[in-house]
């Protein structure tokens, strides 16, 4: 994986005596008195050694708080979940017998898991693809010279400020099957009411709408920031060559946005596959629908762990989700790269 070229990566410490750090040179020169040569030589040696250590070790020390915290809050739960997933484990009773991969076998052979997987990907695709396309468009518009720039830029971010729970409560009311606002409006123009809760695809669409409502503006601002970093010379040169707006967008903007696009797509994949708040609050019971129409993997996990109090199986689902996210993340990177290269 290539690192994004933000130039923010920490300066790599050059190991070995061949590349002494800058501060060690004056150290040797000034702290060497003329008398008691032998001792001072040794002192110089110690001091040199320490300063070499300093150069080699300190950077790691500086970044260690993050890794220590990550080990506690990220790595440990990850490994502990793996430990739980190979045991019988009740939410309250705690650890039971070691069962090997039985929990995984149960989950993989249980139809709801596959329905949950289908739903998760369906909601993810319906939300992520239009969202990034729309965000690109909005960012491109905001990148132009328009009046009241700050107003528009803050405006697109406004939905992001609203709490997801509030968004979901309002939207799920609007998407009511019998007395919802949207079906009412559809009725006005003569379209038959849509089963926003009873039909699987319609419910995915409704949930994707909530996600897009909150995240499109946020994604657009990230893309806008990246667009503004593109040297204007490129556009001038293209204009002189007679390239139109559309050609400029596809031949300059998109390729230049590649690292940012990878970032946006990877983060929205992680978020999209873990979607929970919206489906959980989409109806009154929060179990993803009577025939699991919009039960995502995280809802399935929740139902197993907190509904049935079966933590072993829930942990197995958590690990499967983890693996799926890694696979999809890698796929994303590969696809994004080839798209950006091709254009």
């Amino acid at each position: 994986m290539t690192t994004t070229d933000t130039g923010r990566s920490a300066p790599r410490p050059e190991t070995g005596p061949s590349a002494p750090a800058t501060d060690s040179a004056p150290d040797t020169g000034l702290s060497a008195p003329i008398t008691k040569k032998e001792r001072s030589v040794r002192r110089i040696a110690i001091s040199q050694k320490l300063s070499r250590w300093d150069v080699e070790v300190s950077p790691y020390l500086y970044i260690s708080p993050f890794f220590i915290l990550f080990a506690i809050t990220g790595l440990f739960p990850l490994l502990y979940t793996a430990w739980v997933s190979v045991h019988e484990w009740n939410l309250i009773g705690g650890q039971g017998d070691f069962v090997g991969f039985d929990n995984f076998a149960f989950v993989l052979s249980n139809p709801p898991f596959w329905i949950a997987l289908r739903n998760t990907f369906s909601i993810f695709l319906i939300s992520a693809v239009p969202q990034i396309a729309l965000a690109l468009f909005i960012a491109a518009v905001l990148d132009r010279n328009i009046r009241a720039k700050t107003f528009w830029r803050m405006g697109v971010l406004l939905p992001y400020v609203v709490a997801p729970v509030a968004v979901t409560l309002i939207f799920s009311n609007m998407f009511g099957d019998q007395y919802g606002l949207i079906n009412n409006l559809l009725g006005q123009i003569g379209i038959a009411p849509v089963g926003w809760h009873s039909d699987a695809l319609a419910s995915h669409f409704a949930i994707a709408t909530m996600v897009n409502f909150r995240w499109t503006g946020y994604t657009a601002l990230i893309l806008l920031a990246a667009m503004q970093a593109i040297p204007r010379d490129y556009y001038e040169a293209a204009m002189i060559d007679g390239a139109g707006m559309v050609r400029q967008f596809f031949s300059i903007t998109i390729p230049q946005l590649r690292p940012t696009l990878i970032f946006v797509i990877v983060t929205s994949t992680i978020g999209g596959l873990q979607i929970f708040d919206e489906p959980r609050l989409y109806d009154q019971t929060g179990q993803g629908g009577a025939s699991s129409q919009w039960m995502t993997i995280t809802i399935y996990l929740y139902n197993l762990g907190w509904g049935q109090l079966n933590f072993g199986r829930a942990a197995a689902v958590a690990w499967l989700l983890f693996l799926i996210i890694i696979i999809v993340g890698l796929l994303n990177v590969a696809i994004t790269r080839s798209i950006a290269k091709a254009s």
Partner: protein
Amino acid sequence: MNLSRRSTAAAALAGAAAFALIASGCSSSTETPEAGGDITLTVATFNDFGYTDEMLAQYEAENPGVTIVHNRAATSNDARDNFFTKLGAGSGLADVEAVEIDWFAEMLQYSDKLADLSDPELADRWVQWKTDAATDADGRLVAYGTDIGPEAVCYRSDLFAAAGLPTDREEVASLLEGDWDRYFEIGQEYVDASGAAWFDSAGATYQGMINQVEFAYEEADGTVIATENPEVEAIYTDVLNASSTLSAHLGQWSDDWFAGLANGAFATMLCPGWMLGVISGNAPDVTGWDVANVFPGGGGNWGGSYLTVPAQGANIEAAKKLAAWLTAPEQQMTAFAAAGTFPSQVEAYESTELQEASNEYFNNAPVGQILIDRSQAIEVAPFKSVKYFPINDALQRALTRVDVDASMSIEESWELFVADVNAL
């Protein structure tokens, strides 16, 4: 000169300090209970228990140094998730936790995590079956009863009038007197006359029917019989057959359902005492709701709750005292007036206050006397063991698939229910 060295040490120190800060941040939240000092007691309930702010303020006034914080969950499902999560975690529960009868047995498995509330003075406070259910295998009383849910039938007198049915609550009671088939027959008459729906949902109606079966899902030894019990399948099929014409197809507690309460989508619904508060609270502008002293198939109890004191709390004695006070007949009467939660306390039944209680919203129906009569009509206390809640949940989903979503046939949905139960 030793600048670099010093900075190394400083960095190490700073890192260690930051780490120590974080580590100590986690552990500093454990409070030591202060004897005699000011304490805060949290009370967690769901739906509407009728515990008004004035009522809690009264306790605070009578017990200086006690502050009460009341947290309300929206549904019993939410409360259950929260309760079991924190019971397992060993911390985070409120000092007084409300528990619903449907998942009470599930909770009783872990009764050692609850404080023993046995008190000879309170032994006869509740109706016997309420107390029996709250006593664990070791004979400890782990919960104080709050309300029970004797069921009547709520109806819209204005819609009844428009469809040519009697509107007086006495006449409605005698009209509906009989078994479930009778209730569905009159419903069909209403539907033919009005074109609107008779009841709100298959799920709610099923709930009334299944609560008249003593052993529905489990036998006395805990063996799961839900999928083989012909009684369950018969009720399931009956209610769904009736629903095809009589139901408003609204999932209970959904946004559509609440809207239907107010806009006349259906003419009747089954009404446990606590439902009265739900109706008047969510359809405040409707004047037609009334309640009839009748219930198909005799009597039935739906829901009803308890208060427990988790053993993980810091102020168990104070919490116990509060729970005892909240479940005293006087307080339960106040709660009944506020939310219609019908007392499970024996003494309350003799009080003229309850006997004469009427509800203005329901056209001044004598709800006290009606619910006393309905509670006396209850013949069966359904047996609810550890799997009752998840099985009933799966069956409600099966009903929803047919009645609300219309995504499956009655047979297909039953098969999926069987698969769901087998996967538990």
